């Protein structure tokens, strides 16, 4: 493989890794607070892609505004999922909420088939994003630079919220001790809603960029990216934001590079993530950056 080819693959890997990482953050944040795997998260990713599609085609919004609107509406959808499917089960055994999560995931997928129809659709892509640029023999899409950049900005913004603001402080506190945090005057349900809102916004941003990169959207498009991002979150150490980003990047690298170096494996591409999951669960079940597992009091 030439060095140029390698660099192209590297850009692809970082792009894919960014998209996984953005979804994984939502899994990890919700898990950190509620100890719940929000299986409907992949569906919010899918909704993000559909919302920008309809914002452009039906509402005729300019592209940038459509993206912002799609992120905002998806974020509200994430909060609604919590309100409807998880909040009533807050005091129920954890398995109940998990089952509810799986149910919501199927529900949204199937509702999307009814509403959006199952036909794949193509999201409009501004030309400047997808015109191949040749830089000294390296051919890349501007998108492959922009996606990691946008991801970086979003992650920095997220870290600022989590580590530098009061709601972020409350989030971190709740993840360890809900009762004590309430005694400090924190309204837990509001912080949980905020967590779902932020996680869903990031998933929708990922869905939108995914639709630009792989321009075909359909109601089941959230299934595999969602599962893989979940694996990325587990790999990085579920509950850790840094871990989710690292896990996503790593998974992106593995998928792209394995196929690049061993093209005969390309048919197994989707299996790599699961092999990785099995390996990490056998070797280090808490993930790369995960904390020791402890039962919540």
């Amino acid at each position, binding site marked *: 493989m030439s060095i140029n080819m390698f660099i192209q693959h590297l850009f692809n890997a970082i792009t894919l890794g960014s998209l996984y990482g953005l979804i994984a953050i939502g899994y990890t944040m919700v898990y950190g607070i509620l100890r719940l795997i929000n299986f409907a998260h992949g569906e919010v990713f899918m909704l993000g892609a559909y919302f920008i599609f309809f914002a452009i085609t039906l509402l005729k919004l300019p592209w940038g505004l459509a993206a912002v609107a799609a992120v905002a509406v998806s974020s509200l959808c994430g909060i609604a999922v919590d309100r409807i499917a998880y909040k009533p089960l807050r005091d129920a055994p954890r398995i109940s909420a998990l089952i509810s999560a799986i149910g919501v995931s199927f529900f949204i997928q199937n509702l999307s088939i009814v509403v959006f129809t199952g036909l794949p659709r193509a999201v409009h892509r501004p030309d400047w994003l997808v015109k191949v640029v040749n830089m000294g023999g390296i051919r890349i899409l501007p998108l492959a630079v922009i996606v990691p950049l946008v991801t970086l900005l979003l992650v920095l913004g997220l870290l600022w919220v989590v580590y530098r603001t009061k709601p972020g402080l409350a989030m971190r*506190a709740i993840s*360890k001790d809900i009762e*004590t*945090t*309430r*005694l*400090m005057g*924190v*309204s837990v349900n509001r912080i949980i809603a905020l967590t779902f809102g932020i996680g869903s916004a990031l998933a929708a941003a990922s869905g939108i960029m995914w639709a630009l990169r792989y321009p075909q959207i359909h109601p089941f498009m959230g299934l595999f990216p969602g599962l893989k991002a979940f694996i990325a979150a587990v790999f990085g150490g579920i509950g850790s934001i840094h871990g989710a980003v690292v896990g996503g990047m790593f998974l992106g690298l593995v998928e792209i590079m394995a196929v690049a170096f061993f093209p005969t494996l390309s048919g197994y591409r989707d299996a790599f993530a699961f092999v990785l999951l099995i390996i990490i669960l056998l070797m280090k079940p808490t993930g790369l950056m995960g904390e020791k597992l402890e039962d919540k009091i």
Partner: protein
Amino acid sequence: MLKIEDLHVNYGAIHAVKGVSLSIPRGGIVTLIGANGAGKSSAIRAIAGLIRGARGRILYTPPDGAEVNLAGMAPEEIVKLGVTMSPEGRRILPHLTVEENLRLGAFIRTDKEGIERDMDHVYSLFPRLRERSWQKGGTLSGGEQQMLALARAIMSRPHLVMLDEPSLGLAPLLVKEVFDIIGEINSQGKTVLLVEQNAFAALKIATYAYILEVGSIVLEGRGEDLLKDSRVKEAYLGG
């Protein structure tokens, strides 16, 4: 300031608090003492709003307002009214720094300058905490964690501070320090409700005391009087 009428707490079939009534005058230190399992913690947790389904009236009169019934309110609403509880076992957030723990204590406040002033104030009250402000709460010793818990409790600028077993598990020297600080907090105008197993230390500092046995108040009186009471001596002060 706080008047409790006929408080009941049930955990399933267990009747942990059976009709407790007590009253806490403004500016006082009232203590609730009793053996393990007497219902002290349940009572104080019910006041803080942590026990759903507690029955009875918990009438609180803030210095600047009308009487409200705290029963049935959520803990985050109660703390906003000026009633703060520091839970048993200190419950410092181990992964947050000392500074962050204190700022969490001030979560309900929006007066930035006031918060900074109070941060300074608690740091001067607890110089050890200032030295360790960037350390994670979980790395502090038991005594330091208790100081942090006390400091955190007053960061919300409460009118009534409720402390659940602040001396638990501390060495005698630290116990004395903790009680000195409780006295200091009280002398700065805050009313204190103190739940303790260390009856001797609690009675010495208290203006009024209630003794709880299996969910009911069996004796009450001024702290100094109860210290001399023969029944109290026998049961709680080691004869």
